[in-house]
Structures are given as structure tokens and as C-alpha cells.
């Protein structure tokens, strides 16, 4: 089993957090996991992306040049990274901020930012997309992921955690095939 997933968006969208949650959860059950965040030097704005690799065998490159799944949160990231997706790979796009990629492989369009706003915080859009991804790629137990989400919000407002868990479940339940 080899699953390479790229998550990309703008700084501030919680891209790195989402990737780290996937990696930490996966470490409990997958033999080899690597996680690699990439930041621009600017503290805000700019692009943000991370790659998580899950494998039954030793992982040679934590930054593969092609990925099997991609979660894209804004248009500039879509344009920049879509060529990295292998043929037939899984593309999940945040349709609130992404235009339809021309001639794309079947993408799952999720109006994540709108949904997150409705739930109470646009910053929870990343959790929605995480849920959508895990429903399609059942590689990690959902309970492990939820546990990692809880750890990430330790020491923060309870209401924030509630919104993010709700967002995660909303993503898991999201059922709109292309």
C-alpha cells in the first residue's frame, strides 16, 4: 500500500494542521509514515502545502513528485499543484474558492468554506475536507483521526473544538459524487 497525499491552500487555512493530523493518526496503524510541511518565508498569505506519505514499505522520499490524492483549498494552489496528481487520482477541491479545473480528472467538489462558515468558523474548512478524504480513502480508523483532532485543540476554546469536530463529521457525511 502506498498513499501519497498533498494538501495545499493559502497560509492561514490550516493546511499544515490537517496534514499533521492525518500523519499522527496514521502512525498508530501504518508501518511507515512521513509528513512534510512547506511554508513560504512570509508569516501570512503565501502558499502553504504539506505532503503525507503512508506506506507498508520503507519510504524513500517524503516529497514525492506525484501524489495519489490531493486536497486543494484555493485556486492558486489548484493551478500550481494539479499536475502532480496521478492519472485516476483523487482530487478534492474546496469549490468555494476553486474554479473548476479545465479537463480535470473527476474531482469531488465541496463548498467547504461556505459549509464551515455556516458551522461557525471558516477556519474549519480544512476539517470538512479531511472528512471527505477519509470517507473516500479508508486507510486510517476514523476514531484515531478524531482523537488527533481533539489533541490539537487542547488548551483552546471548547467551542472551537466542537466546531471542528462537527466540521470533520460533516465532511465524512458529505455525499455528492461528481
Amino acid at each position, binding site marked *: 500500500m502506498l498513499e501519497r497525499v498533498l494538501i495545499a491552500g493559502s497560509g492561514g487555512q490550516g493546511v499544515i494542521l490537517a496534514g*499533521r493530523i492525518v*500523519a499522527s493518526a496514521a*502512525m498508530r496503524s501504518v508501518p*511507515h*509514515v*512521513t*509528513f*512534510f*510541511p*512547506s511554508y513560504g*518565508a512570509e508569516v501570512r498569505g503565501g502558499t502553504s502545502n504539506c505532503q503525507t506519505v503512508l506506506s507498508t514499505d*520503507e*519510504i*524513500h*522520499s*517524503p*516529497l*514525492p*513528485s506525484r501524489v495519489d490524492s490531493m486536497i486543494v483549498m484555493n485556486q492558486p494552489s489548484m493551478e500550481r499543484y494539479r499536475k502532480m496528481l496521478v492519472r485516476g487520482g483523487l482530487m478534492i477541491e474546496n469549490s468555494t474558492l476553486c474554479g473548476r479545473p479545465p479537463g480535470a480528472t473527476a474531482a469531488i467538489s465541496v463548498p467547504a468554506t461556505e459549509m464551515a462558515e455556516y458551522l461557525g468558523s471558516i477556519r474549519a474548512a480544512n476539517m470538512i475536507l479531511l472528512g471527505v478524504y477519509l470517507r473516500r480513502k479508508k486507510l486510517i480508523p476514523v476514531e484515531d483521526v478524531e482523537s488527533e483532532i481533539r489533541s490539537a485543540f487542547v488548551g483552546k476554546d471548547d467551542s472551537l473544538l466542537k466546531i471542528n469536530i462537527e466540521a470533520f463529521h460533516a465532511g465524512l457525511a458529505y455525499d455528492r459524487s461528481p
Partner: protein
Amino acid sequence: MTGNDAIAEAAIRAGCDAYYGYPITPQNEIANYMARHMPARGRVFIQAESELAAINMVFGTAVAGRRAMTSSSSPGVSLKQEGISYLAGAELPAVIVNVQRGGPGLGNIAPSQSDYFQAVKGGGHGDYHQIVLAPHSVQEMYDLTALAFDLADRYRNPVMVLSDGRLGQMMEPVTLHEVRSRPPPKPWALTGARGRKPNLIRSLLLGEGELERHNLRLQRKYARISRSEQRWEERNARNCDVLIVAYGTCARIAKGCAAAAADFGLKAGLFRPISLWPFPYRPMRRAASSAKCVLVVEMSAGQMLEDVRLAVAGMAPVFFLGRMGGGVPEEGEVLRRLRALAKTTRRRSHGAE
């Protein structure tokens, strides 16, 4: 855990008494980790006013007979060179971590391997060596940092852990092995001359012939280290078409390519130095002697390449694939190079000479 965090955790478990650092990307996580964990354990954490101050604080703690570590990235490590020379000259144990980034000058924050010369050939002034260990995984960041403290005390010498921005940021599972955290006795340390003759720590030796004798002693020490502390990893290194030589991040990429090369009928082996100083010259020559050619992959303009050429000593042709300024070799480009080399070497061995 991330590579940077693994370094910090290993240092703590190895009984590092003091950590001195200064912010510089991409190794800030080390200082942040130490800031969170050292004071709680009653150990010293100081964010110094500069990298120069930090290495001198390390010098001080080493003089006092305790374990100290500092970390930085390329431009900051440049500032530490004077301090490292002093540590070597005064024969003091210390651990210095360099998470390499693109250079020269301010460069960028992307990974690089362009500080090899600085680490291995000197960097500071005078005839000295620091032991240089090069991890290629988060597990090795942990293991080799713990080893660094051990070697530093065993030989009374500075030891450098040479990493890069990618390994530092990468997250992988780590097994936190038991680490020996009790250093050997240090009767030479400055702890106050109660009940003994006063100790002196210095590197200034003005007497007739004194400094040369000291240098000869240091050279004998370095010879001992060379005999006992060479470390490397070999994979399918006998009778291969191409022997890839790489360390750190490039070694990981090389492993993937060596495996993929089998798909097009190429037998690619890997020789991965783990100690860059002492450099495993003889083992590398042995491996190269049965290879059709050698390919060095480095994120530099060709620094370790020179030592590989010395090691191989004409036994096989040595080729080079390098990326600079923060560029990282991609699997695709390494594979293309391997394919091209496979063609040339087959032609050669079919009597085209």
C-alpha cells in the same frame, strides 16, 4: 516526531545540561522544544544574543565539565567557526547542530548540503577536525545526536550533527531508545581548585615548539578517531552497474532510485557515509572497486564529490549530479541520469575502449 524535535529530545535524554541557541529558519523548532523542556528539568536554556554568543556559552559550559549543545543553520554556523576552532584547540567536548539551508550569504530557507566543506575541511582556522555525523531519517537524528554527546566526551572534541532543512521539518515515527546519559569523569574541568592543583583550559601556546607538539597530539587523536569511528551504510554495493554515493536527504532519494532502477535492468547500489569526518575512504574504495561507475548525488556544487574522488582513486569513473541553492534532486532526474550512465557503462564493457 519531526527531525528537529528528535534532535532536541535525544539531547535531553543524553543528559545535555545546557542548550544555547538563536532563532534562524529552518531549525527554530529545536530552540522552541528546548525552551519548553529544559527549564522544567532544572537545566539551562538560553536564547543568546547571537550565534556567536551561543557557541561561546557552549565553550563555557564545556569548560565547566558539563554537556552543552547549540544549533543553527548555515549563516549562523558560519558565525560559530571561531568558537569551534577554540573548542578543538582547547580539546573541549560540545555538540553543534547545523540544519543546512541554501547559501551562500542569506540564501534561502530550502534544504542544502553546501556546508560540507565548512564542516569537514575546517571552516574555522587552524589544523583541527570535528567529528561530523550525517543522519538521513528522523530515527537517525535521534540516534546520532545521542551518539554525538558520547563521542564528544570520549574524545574531548566538538562533534557536529549535519542535517538539512528537509530532514528537520519532516515527521516520521521514532523509537526513543535508551540513551546513556552519564558522561565520563572530567578531572580536567574547571570546577574550582578545592583539594587539587588548579586546572587551566587554553589554546594559546607560545612556548618554543609547544604549539607544534600540541598539534601533533591532536593529529594522533584524529588518527585514533579515524580508525574507530567511521560509519556508513551499504546497500547492494557489490558488483553494481552504478554505485550511488550520497548522504542525508540525497541518500533517501538515492534509495528510492536504486530500487526503481532494477525495473529497467540496472543494478544500482548505494554507499551512504554516516560519518562525514572521519570519512570512510577505505570501505568506499572497496565498494567502488567492483562497480562499473560511481554517481555522487549532492545538494551542492560538488563538495563531498572531492572526497569520493579521493576514496575511489581511479578505480571507477566518478560522475556527479548536483543541485544548488536549495534545489533538491528529484527522483525523475536521478533515474534519467542512471539510465544514461547504464548505457555508457554497457558500451564501455562491450569492448568499445
